[in-house]
């Protein structure tokens, strides 16, 4: 077991203390943090082995594993809050080629990783507990909890990765779990196809990730993030030569997992999975992996790609946050609304990180995880009650399910960026970064996006909880096992924004910016000294405008919410309903070309390559007959006998096979070889 200290820390120390290293090393909790990575896999196997025999079908094992994990994650999180945890990674070698190419697995201990450990385990535990109630009585529960544990393990492997190879292992591992759980109800092939779509879109993006990793790994002689960071900070020439290509490729990979336009098309379909899956994987944690990757490799972008790749990243993030956010306005499936919202918020995170807002992007990732998981679980609670995803079957639910209603309101307000909830602070920070970095136009898009967010969330809340109930089931509040996780997520959705108020340094725990590791490794991103009032007001006005306008449209006249035809602007409405026709185009191209191409390839195999083989066989047989009858029978012997025998046996073997006269082959083979040898010896 090797302990490597992050080079940035060393660098910082060497450069005479630009930054003072005051952090600890995580102590016992850091040494043993591998437990977090192992337990979910143990749970996975244990549930598969005997989940069926347990009362909760293995759910208890999954919950227990994450509960224990949360002890470690919580301890590390607290340590990092109070004294800081030094950038370290513990690794062990799993393979070595020659002198230099080393493959390692391990776990990272730095602000970023610890934040993710906490996030994954905290949100994960609450969602798992919720799932105990939500999934009760469903089919294949052991498989559900096993696959869910597999996801948790793979996600932790991903965020713990000290190098690109382990990241790829975790990356595709979460993709696998995602595929399994999207297609959880696989009796219906539509769900299977949604899973396939998710897997395939991500696989296309993964080409970027893998090639980017290959290029960086070969160039640097190491897949370690620490090596990459150091080379980037030192403006290593070899790295500089490949930085643009590698950076663009990695970003392409990130676009897939983090559902950036136009690779976002898989995420809405992924809602085919059970709602807890949507909450944890397709909202709170897994889909942030792309943003996480961009943060992990931040120095590469910060030192080499500010001019070249980053503007494109910002543009894609901006398109994602606005254009896909609009789609949430016309969706009637409550989970689809939240899915488009997730894509849009991922756009915010990506835009921020791409613009150079390391902390801003990650802070939004952090707060978003709580309120978006909360919203999904709330939606699940509603779906549980009314047995439908369709908001036109809902309405008036606030009276029937108060806990769900109030927590959902909190989540919506946090998402919309209403002061002083979590989303307000993180979104405000993104606006500040965009403004500071000179992306003023994009900042206004982000403001417009904030308006849209508030607008569609108001619509969602109004249609679901206000007016009169339009469905046919008998709605009821969800059981406590589902209600408590809602409350557990509502609290951070309210409070956690306070962790990073610009300029505020909470006594004893400092702030989120510090937790992310500026104690040891400055990322070179901008941290405003104090809150920028103008931006805060602009953002708030946009959000409040969205709420008011939404309420005017959907909140009033509650009983006839269905008939809002005047909102359905011609041309725009069908365009949005059609999801900009991206899915149709993409699927049309893939479906339209792959089938014919594949069939053509198969045709060439049968009629050309095989055709040649068969023609040679047929011709040889014919030649054999001709030689035998025409030449051999007229007394030519010697070597030609051999040739004839070879050819004849080839031809006639079709008949003679069952008699098993293999000596004919043998003789033909020997004779043929003999001829060739003789030719060879004499000719050369």
């Amino acid at each position, binding site marked *: 077991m090797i302990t490597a200290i992050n080079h940035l820390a060393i660098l910082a120390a060497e450069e005479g203390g630009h930054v003072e290293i005051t952090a600890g090393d995580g102590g016992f909790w850091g040494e043993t943090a591998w437990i977090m990575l192992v337990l979910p896999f143990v749970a996975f196997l244990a549930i598969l082995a005997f989940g069926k025999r347990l009362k909760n079908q293995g759910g208890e094992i999954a919950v227990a594993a994450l509960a224990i994990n949360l002890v470690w994650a919580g301890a590390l999180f607290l340590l990092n809050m109070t004294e800081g945890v030094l950038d370290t990674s513990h690794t062990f070698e799993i393979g070595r080629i020659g002198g230099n190419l080393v493959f390692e697995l391990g776990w990272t201990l730095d602000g970023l990783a610890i934040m993710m450990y906490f996030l994954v385990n905290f949100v994960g535990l609450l969602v798992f507990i919720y799932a105990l109630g939500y999934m009760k009585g469903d089919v294949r529960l052991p498989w559900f909890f096993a696959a869910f544990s597999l996801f948790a393990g793979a996600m932790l492997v991903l965020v713990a990765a000290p190098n690109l190879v382990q990241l790829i292992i975790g990356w595709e591992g979460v993709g696998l779990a995602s595929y399994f759980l999207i297609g959880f109800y696989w009796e*219906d*092939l539509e769900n299977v196809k949604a899973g396939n779509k998710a897997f395939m879109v991500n696989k296309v993006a993964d080409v970027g990730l893998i090639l980017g990793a290959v290029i960086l790994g070969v160039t*640097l002689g190491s897949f370690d993030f620490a090596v990459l960071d150091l080379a980037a900070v030192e403006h290593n020439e070899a790295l500089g030569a490949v930085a643009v290509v590698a950076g663009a490729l990695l970003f392409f990979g990130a676009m897939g997992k983090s559902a950036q336009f136009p690779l976002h098309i898989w995420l809405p379909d992924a809602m085919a999975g059970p709602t807890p899956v949507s909450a944890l994987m397709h909202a709170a944690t897994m889909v942030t992996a792309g943003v996480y990757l961009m943060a992990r490799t931040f120095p590469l972008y910060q030192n080499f790609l500010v001019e070249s790749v980053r503007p494109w990243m910002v543009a894609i993030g901006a398109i994602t946050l606005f254009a896909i956010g609009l789609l949430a306005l016309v969706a009637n499936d409550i989970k689809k609304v939240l899915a488009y919202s997730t894509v849009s918020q991922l756009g915010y995170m990506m835009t921020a990180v791409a613009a150079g807002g390391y902390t801003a992007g990650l802070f939004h990732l952090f707060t978003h995880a709580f309120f978006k998981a909360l919203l999904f679980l709330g939606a699940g609670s509603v779906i549980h009650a009314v047995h439908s995803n369709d908001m036109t079957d809902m309405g008036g639910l606030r009276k029937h399910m108060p806990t769900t209603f109030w927590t959902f309101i909190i989540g919506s307000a946090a998402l919309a960026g209403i002061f002083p909830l979590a989303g307000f602070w993180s979104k405000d920070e993104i606006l500040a970064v965009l403004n500071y970095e000179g992306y003023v136009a994009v900042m206004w898009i982000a403001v417009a996006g904030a308006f849209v967010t508030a607008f569609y969330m108001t619509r969602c809340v109004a249609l679901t909880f206000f007016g009169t109930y339009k469905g046919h089931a008998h709605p009821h509040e969800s059981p406590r096992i589902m209600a408590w996780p809602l409350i557990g997520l509502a609290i951070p959705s309210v409070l956690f924004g306070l962790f990073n108020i610009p300029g505020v340094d909470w006594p004893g725990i400092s702030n989120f910016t510090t937790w992310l590791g500026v104690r040891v490794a400055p990322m070179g991103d901008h941290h405003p000294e104090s809150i920028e009032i103008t931006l805060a007001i602009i953002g708030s006005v946009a959000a409040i405008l969205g709420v008011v306008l939404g309420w005017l449209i959907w909140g009033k006249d509650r009983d006839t919410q269905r008939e809002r035809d005047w909102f359905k602007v011609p041309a725009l409405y069908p365009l949005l309903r059609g999801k900009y026709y991206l899915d149709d185009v993409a699927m049309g191209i893939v479906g339209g070309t792959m089938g014919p191409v594949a069939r053509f*390839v*198969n045709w060439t195999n049968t009629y050309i390559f095989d055709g040649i083989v068969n023609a040679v066989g047929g011709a040889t047989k014919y030649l054999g007959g001709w030689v035998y009858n025409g030449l051999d029978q007229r007394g030519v012997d010697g070597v030609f006998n051999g040739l004839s025998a070879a050819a004849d046996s080839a031809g006639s073997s079709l008949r003679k096979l069952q008699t098993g006269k293999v000596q004919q082959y043998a003789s033909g083979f020997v004779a043929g070889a003999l001829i060739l040898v003789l030719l060879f010896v004499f000719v050369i």
Partner: protein
Amino acid sequence: MELFETWGLTVTVFLPVVGAVLLGFIKRDNEDSLKRTALLFAVLAFICSIVVVVAFDFGGTPYNTYQFEVNETWIGAINANYHVGVDGISLPLLVLSTFVMVLAVVYSWNHWEEPKNPKAFLILMLILATGMNGTFVALDLVLFFIFFEIVLLPMYFMIGIWGDKSPRKVPGFSKVFETRLYASIKFFLFTLFGSAFMLLGFLALYFESGDHGERTFDITQLTDLGASGAFAGWSVAGWVFAAMFLGFAVKVPMWPLHTWLPDAHTAAPTVGSVLLAAILLKLGSYGFIRISLPILPDEAVAWAPWIAILAVIGIIYGSLACLAQTDMKRLIAFSSVGHMGFVMLGIATMTDIGINASVIGMVAHGLITGLLFFLAGSMSHRYHTREMARLGGNIKLMPVIGGILAFTAMASLGLPGLAGFWGEFMSLVASYNPLEGLSLGVFRTSMVLGAIGTVLTAGYMLWMLQRVNLGEPNAEWDDHEFHDADRFELAAWVPLIVLIVVIGFYPKVIFNSTTDAVTSMVEMVFGTDTTTASLTTTVKGG
């Protein structure tokens, strides 16, 4: 132990054939003793190979030194010797071979395909084992050739006698053939065609070596000659390489010499397909590494871009062909074309990373595709069809088999964390920086196309799962009782699953053996330490 030093490999290689002879004395209807005897000898051979592993010195001996070496005069007239030995490259393949053979015998226990006759089938399997084991340890070209060819006969009979009896229309022929006959003859003649040229190449080497001392078939001596540049100015060296290339490329198989494979695989009985995929294909790629590269390095470098191009065409072509298949077994067969493309791409880079990639790729493909063929066999045994259109919902009818199929499909598409990943990933790594002097344009294009190939691979594997495993079962199976995996099947499969996971998470089990041998081979043969030349390591901290 000293006795084992000299006899170990010989025993490992010939135990199975001794078993085959013994089986000859057992009565045909005494199935139990037949099976037990066959299993005994397969297990003994496996144990021997494990003892070799345990006693093996992984201490990084230079290339062209072999352990458990035996070199006895055999046919003095042509200076052909009984020369066997293992090094880090052949060791994993030897163990793979003995290991898969045990599983194949276990699986056969209650899976006899018509016309049954366990005695004959087991004898053929054991002969096959000797041929396969022998190829991996032979250090004399004549010996290598004989083992290489011994393999043909049992496989030919397995396909021809126990194979698929359905009729098959061959384009261009009015006659309708039985699938097994068409496939077995195609397999035999195709391979023989390649082997004839390979033999020619061997003979040319033999005669040419006379110019530099005594004529020899000895691989170690020829390697020394090749590495020292003795064959550098040889006017026909290119032709000799080409002749050997044909022999190995047919076996791998490389596009466009692959067309025997889908037919042979599809027609073969389950165990035949498994052995064909798991071991036989590796004889070709192993031949490249053991013979072509070290003995004719200059020619290998000259051919490398072409090998890479063919390999990549194979990856893309094989994957696309998979997308057009309706027969599950044929789909799996075609997938081998793509996967072996990665193995050959690794070899074509002529670097230590690439050749390591190819060896771990061979092992992984052997385990994974072997398992896929087991599963396909067990399923067609139950459904009596391999048409994917008639399958569906398999995981509902048979959760265990369905679950293992899903796992194996994931492994096959190169999921990181499972064995298949390393070979593909490292082939791409190696292609980014091939041996100095090789065209970066060709290899980096290959890298990109290879990566795209992984997407296609994922595509057809998921599509197969969708059609076979998921959805509701076809109505025609409503009244059928299906029994899920039995204990013999599980006994054959679980070890494969475990190994796929272990190698996936800890590839060192393979690299530990291969890396020193490969690195020193690349140094010795191509004169460069490619890794250190191309990779500048920055500080590793701590």
